[in-house]
């Protein structure tokens, strides 16, 4: 698998788009022939299409933001319906894309954890229904002995009869929540966190620098701890800690030197960052900064009032003329988001920096985002049409069999498409994975 992919990249002459630390051999290829050969393009139209497809299919990592937006679309769709068939299809689509398009970084292995978490949430939701009295509806499946509780916790019921309806409630909710968690996991394992950090907006430059320093320093901590432990072993051969006081001294002897070592290295890191122009103060003017602060203030204020009104529902709709009616709450949301964008843009105004090999936003990225939002469009279309009831199958008073309207099936297949229409993930050689 490894050899085949690398060979394919090298025969075409491009090995670009790998993550940090690509193999030296690929870099040579990149330098030698930066563009794919254009010979094929002149021979015939068919060959040109074929070579265009081949270039399109060159292994590279997609822009991390594209994967997150794709996942955001699927999550939105999943949160808008409780239909288990739709949830199951979206779950399957996300899982399939992960399996076919994740690369081999450490983050790519995290998908299993999310799958376990999602399954756990699904089970917990059902168990919760059973434990706290699942007696809604007529179809009682089995009856558990009810546990009497003291009057302090009146209103809480433990165990008792368990009905099909209450288990279905738990299962529908659990599947919805589990799908959202698994899709978050899909974004986590498809998008490299380091490259995601690189695409932070300029206003978060300093926070981004802090995170990059943290991510880079992280492996050195283990080495520092090992060094301190070795030095301590050399000083005293066997540390026998009996009393509490001795034991705490032992911990101190390990923690304090490691911390001091790390902080010292931070000071020298700061000096070298100074020398290379990292983290310098932004050159933005005072006017820009005041404007940024004002818009930030307005944004948080708008969003806060919006949030309060969302749960309390006190703001009225305002009629603008005779046709257009604007709900004040929606206007606040739009104003808040716009002010936030403006503020972030303004506070990043003076920051100028160049990037080494920036992530590109090309056609596959656009297509991926579009595929992610197809389910949202389908859910909205079905919700407005005659099949709206299919989005949330009724459980009480009558138990409906969930149905699957055609647009939702098509949308789930579209959400799956990134596994085919995006270029495959680069498979790093052994030294690049280290």
């Amino acid at each position, binding site marked *: 698998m490894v050899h085949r992919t690398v060979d394919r990249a090298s025969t075409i002459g491009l090995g670009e788009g790998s993550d940090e630390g690509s193999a030296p051999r690929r870099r040579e290829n990149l330098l030698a022939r930066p563009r794919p050969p254009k010979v094929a393009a002149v021979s015939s139209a068919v060959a040109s299409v074929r070579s265009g497809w081949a270039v399109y299919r060159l292994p590279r990592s997609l822009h991390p933001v594209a994967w997150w937006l794709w996942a955001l679309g699927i999550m*939105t769709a999943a*949160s808008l319906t409780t239909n288990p068939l739709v949830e199951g299809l979206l779950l399957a689509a996300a899982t399939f894309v992960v399996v076919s398009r994740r690369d081999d970084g450490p983050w790519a292995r995290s998908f299993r954890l999310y799958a376990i978490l999602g399954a756990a949430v699904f089970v917990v*939701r059902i168990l919760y*229904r059973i434990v*706290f*009295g699942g*007696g809604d509806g007529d179809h009682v499946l089995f009856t558990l002995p009810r546990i009497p509780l003291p009057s302090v916790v009146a*209103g*809480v*019921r*433990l165990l008792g009869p368990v009905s099909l309806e*209450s288990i279905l*409630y738990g299962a529908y909710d659990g599947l919805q929540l589990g799908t959202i968690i698994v899709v978050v*996991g899909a974004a*986590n394992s498809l998008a490299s*966190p380091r490259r995601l*950090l690189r695409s932070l907006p300029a*206003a*978060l*430059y300093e*926070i981004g620098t*802090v*995170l990059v*320093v*943290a*991510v*880079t*320093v*992280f492996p050195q*901590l*283990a080495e520092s701890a090992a060094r301190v432990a070795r030095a301590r072993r050399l000083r005293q051969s066997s540390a026998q800690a009996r009393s509490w006081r001795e034991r705490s001294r032992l911990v*101190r002897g390990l923690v304090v030197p490691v911390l001091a070592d790390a*902080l010292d*290295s*931070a*000071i020298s890191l*700061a*000096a070298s*960052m100074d020398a290379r122009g990292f*983290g310098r*103060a*932004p*050159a933005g003017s005072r006017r820009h900064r005041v404007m*940024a*602060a004002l818009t*930030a*203030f307005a944004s*948080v*204020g708008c969003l*806060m009032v919006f*949030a*309060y009104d969302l*749960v*309390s*529902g006190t703001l009225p709709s305002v009629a603008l003329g005779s046709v257009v009616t604007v709900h004040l709450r929606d206007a606040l949301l739009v104003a808040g*988001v716009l002010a*936030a964008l403006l*503020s972030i843009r303004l*506070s*990043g105004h003076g920051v100028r920096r160049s990037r080494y090999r920036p992530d590109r936003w090309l056609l596959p990225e656009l297509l991926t985002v579009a595929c992610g939002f197809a389910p949202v469009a389908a859910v909205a279309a079905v919700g407005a049409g005659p099949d709206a009831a299919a989005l949330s199958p009724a459980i009480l008073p009558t138990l409906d069999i969930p149905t699957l309207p055609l647009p939702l099936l098509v949308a789930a297949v579209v959400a799956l498409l990134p596994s085919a229409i995006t270029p495959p993930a680069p498979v790093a050689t052994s030294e690049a994975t280290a």
Partner: protein
Amino acid sequence: MTAGAELDVSPPEVSVRIGARSGAILALASLAGLLLFAWPLLVPSPTGWAETQGAPVVFAALVPVIVVIVLSQLSDGGMDTRTLALLGVLTAINAALRPALGAGTAGIEFMFVLLILAGRAFGPGFGFVLGATSMATSALFTAGVGPWLPFQMLAAGWVGLGAGLLPGKARGRATVGHLAMLVGYGIAAAYLYGAIMNLWSWPTLTGIATADYGGPAGGLDYVPGAPWLDNLRRFGLYTLLTSTAGWDTGRAVSTSIGLVVLGRPILDVLHRAARRARLS
């Protein structure tokens, strides 16, 4: 926050300065954040709720915006390279402490020790940023990025902020009373952090009971529009059952042990680093 044209000749200070502007934004955003955490208790009547079943989803999308705005305003012109580097290294240590000794081992969590001490030594702004970046980095490492992350960043930021806002002078050798205050704060922060994160996950995990939704009759569900004391009682029972006995107490005990054993030496090391940063 001096004017850009003036030459700053004072020795560099390791801190994240909170000026009038960023302080006002931090206060407003904290208020907004508190509202986004505590909304289940604030719904006045079920009428407003009927059309807004999706509030948790909307709020989960709002909090990142607020966190980003606060962080961009806090860092605006107030951080030099020493602060950045120290923040980075302390963040890395916190991120290493969290998965190695944290989750999975019955709530033994030492992250708050360093967070509280650093907030104490370097001030409230530094503490806030350190809390937020620590959560973000450990989420990147354990791949725990999700809708919960911005809420965790905000809550951990408040823990660091509060440590910086405690009374008494931060410099010099810590007295016993000073340490006792930090331990008390650590215990309170451990329980409050657990409770507020539970408050966030409570409506999502147990479900929201409405008229046409039909949660279990005897459950601990969130009931929108019910008197807030009722909901608070249900929530209290929920958090007591799910986490107070295990996670939160574990976090409180390990934080206070860490502060007692390591509080003074770590504060000394942090002060020494601040001195070195000023001199170099």
